């Protein structure tokens, strides 16, 4: 798995940040959930491919999971780099269902075992995923069928 131009991540709030492979990350999330990190505060995706190239689907995305433990009052961040495919965590965290739908809509990352992976913000006939670096804004993209 190639990692291009990694940015330095700063833990401003004292969170512990872990970088893991995709399979290990799911296991770690499962472990942490059993240890009491039951709240998934946010799930963020980021395209790591360089902006200049037109290679279809950079296929190099970083996912960041921010977890919270209400008993110990601790935060934890887990990062993985994936190839436009990841196992869904909606069985572990109920709030992840919409988060993953949003990432599929805007980035095109497919989540396995998701109950309803569909576009959430954009129209179903929309072409492309707008937050990818290789997405080019068309002149017009109108909605039909009203």
């Amino acid at each position, binding site marked *: 798995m190639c990692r291009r131009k990694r*940015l*330095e*991540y*700063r833990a*401003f*709030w004292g969170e512990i940040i872990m970088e893991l492979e995709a399979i290990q990350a799911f296991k770690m999330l499962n472990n942490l959930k059993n240890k009491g990190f*039951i*709240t*998934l*505060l*946010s799930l*963020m995706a*980021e*395209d790591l491919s360089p902006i200049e190239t037109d290679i279809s689907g950079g296929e190099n995305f970083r996912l*960041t999971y*921010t977890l919270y433990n*209400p008993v110990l*009052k601790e935060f934890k961040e887990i990062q993985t780099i994936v190839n436009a495919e990841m196992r869904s965590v909606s069985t572990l*965290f*109920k*709030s992840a*269902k*919409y988060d993953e739908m949003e990432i599929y809509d*805007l980035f095109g990352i497919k989540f396995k075992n998701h109950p309803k992976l569909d576009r*959430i*913000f*954009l*129209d179903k006939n929309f072409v492309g995923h*707008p*937050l990818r670096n290789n997405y080019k804004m068309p002149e017009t993209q109108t909605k039909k069928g009203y």
Partner: protein
Amino acid sequence: MREVTKDKIAVKIEPNHPITRDMIGFDVILDGEKISKINSNLGFSHKGIEKAGQDRYIGQYLPAIEKIDYFAPFFYSHAFLSALERLSEIELPLYAQYVRVLTMELNRITSHLSNLGRFMDVLNCRSAAFHFFNMQNEILNIFEKISGGRISCNYYVFGGVKNNICREILTEILNFTSKFKEKFKILQGFTKENPVFLDRTRNKGIIDTQNALEYSITGVNLRASGLNLDFRKEKPYLLYDKLEFHAPTVFEGDCYSRFALRLDEIKISVELVKQCLDWLLSNCEEKCNLEIKLSDICPKAGAAVSFTEGPRGLIMCHVVSDGGKKLKRVKWRTPSFYSIQILEKALIGLNLADFAVIFDSLDINSSEADR
């Protein structure tokens, strides 16, 4: 809609329906009078605010942020700027910190008042609704004098605030806080002592602590279901660790406790405003000269997160920069996006007539959820 049989009826509550008010739609399946399934349709007011953050200079992006939630403009611009300030390791001057706390707490009052006022309108208590809106209008007038805008103010800048607040405006805010006690009694009479209000809200839409945490609910909605989690105390930003306040917690988790907590929060915000005014009135002449051009903002390379306790819950802003004038990625965590998911669970088994009550009690703003 496939599950519709002889006994079940499908109802569409679409954006032009009066109880949704904002742009959000629901597909409801009714079993007699009771709701058996509900699906929400998002995206009617999707503004592409995250895409805009990558395409524009930071100075151009600042006014657009406030359109995420038009009831809480100050919170969103603070969330974005504090992430950038942490990235560039800039510390705010004390004067700017006091002004930011003052304006944000005033903004929290307007947001809660508009929520309660709109709910009074749903209950058909029109005269009560206008009492709430009148009080909100007084603060909006103050915002207009401070920044020039009533709803989108664009008052914060990178490293401080745009201009000083003069003594006349500060005394006007002081007058508002001193008259507040009498007005608050009237508002309490309309809500906590109103039999219609109690009847519609008590023991309805109960959310327990475990569910609220699993669905990532924060803010007033979480404190109403029994967990005292306030990010002003948990991860203190600005001056909140120096100021004295305590956010109340209730264990019932029903609609009434959510509305009642919102009323109590208004009281706390007024006390915080008083504490800020004490310092500001004695240090009125202090100046914060800022000569940063908006087009010149250029943070250091790296990534940062900011936590802000908004009126609807936790606002998070992730910022990733490579050292240029444009950002590489901006990610917003908006609390209403998560409240909609628990609405789908809390409504099952209840009457359709309760839809508006529970929808308003969670304080969902669809513009915020859609981004």
